């Protein structure tokens, strides 16, 4: 009986240690694997932030969004990252989707219609989405 208790305790300790290590070592999931909490047009997203930034922060920041719109610009790669800017109708502000360079499909070019998932981080001059992934 004593051996069984010791065995159960050891299995429990090993399980807890494995879980702690798994949690510690976990990396962020690729956005393409995550469900978007909301689908929104790029112009509407910028308007939501500029109309009431606090409300938009609470509604969008840290969440995966599916943003739709026309590609205004695909910037040159920098530090392994590529910014895809979606048109908003405001020449001073866009929705900037930051991609890992390897994740930018060749079909994503200026003037094309895009559906992009990304994690909203807030508004500076532009609305910024990170860890972006194009959606077919």
């Amino acid at each position, binding site marked *: 009986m004593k051996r069984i208790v010791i065995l159960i305790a050891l299995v429990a300790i090993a399980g807890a240690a494995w879980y702690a290590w798994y*949690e*510690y*070592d*976990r*990396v*962020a*999931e690729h956005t393409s694997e995550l469900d978007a909490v909301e689908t929104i047009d790029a112009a509407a997203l910028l*308007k939501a932030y*500029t*109309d009431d*930034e606090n409300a938009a*922060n*609470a509604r969008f*920041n*840290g969440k995966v969004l599916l943003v739709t719109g026309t590609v205004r610009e695909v910037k040159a790669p*920098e*530090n392994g*990252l590529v*910014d895809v800017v979606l048109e908003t109708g*405001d020449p*001073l502000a866009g929705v*900037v989707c*930051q991609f890992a360079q390897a994740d930018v499909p060749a079909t994503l070019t200026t003037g094309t219609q895009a559906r992009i998932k990304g*994690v*909203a*981080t*807030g*508004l*500076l*001059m*532009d609305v*910024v989405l*990170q*860890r972006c992934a194009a959606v077919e």
Partner: protein
Amino acid sequence: MNRPLSLVAALLLTTAASAQERYATRTGHISFQSETPLERIEAHNHKATSVLDASTMAFEMAVLMKGFEFEKALMQEHFNENYVESDKYPKATFKGKVSGITAEDLKQVGSKEVTVEGELTMHGVTKPVKATGTMGLEAGGTIRARGSFIIKPEDYNITIPGMVRDNIAKEIAVTVQVDLARL
């Protein structure tokens, strides 16, 4: 559009004549490193907005706290939820002035040692900071600035739980890299 104008935005919306002395970027790189014997923690943000007014050497930066990316997801979650409370305080801003270089220096290619002194607002607390680094005009016409400074989490009312206190440095090294284009 009812957009509140921050000073950064106001600087960008100036007349063409005065804009000739202004340089800006929306892709500044800010990183920070915490180094202890137990753990090295590093995070990067490539979306800092920065403006330099070369006529006054006023320098500003703004960064979204949720934009800092860590190697490990758990670190990023703890950073946002427990330490900087990025839901409550979504941005950090810096307003300061560059010394050691003049508007005339920035008309010729070359780099100089500079000091940037100003106020950093983060987690609802504003404190003076002093950064050292280099700044100068590149052959392509952009102004390249590199600098670093040290901050203490406790100065910004950031409380580190006792369980991980030995894993996080008491002084955090912050590195800034911006390439500013003429407006």
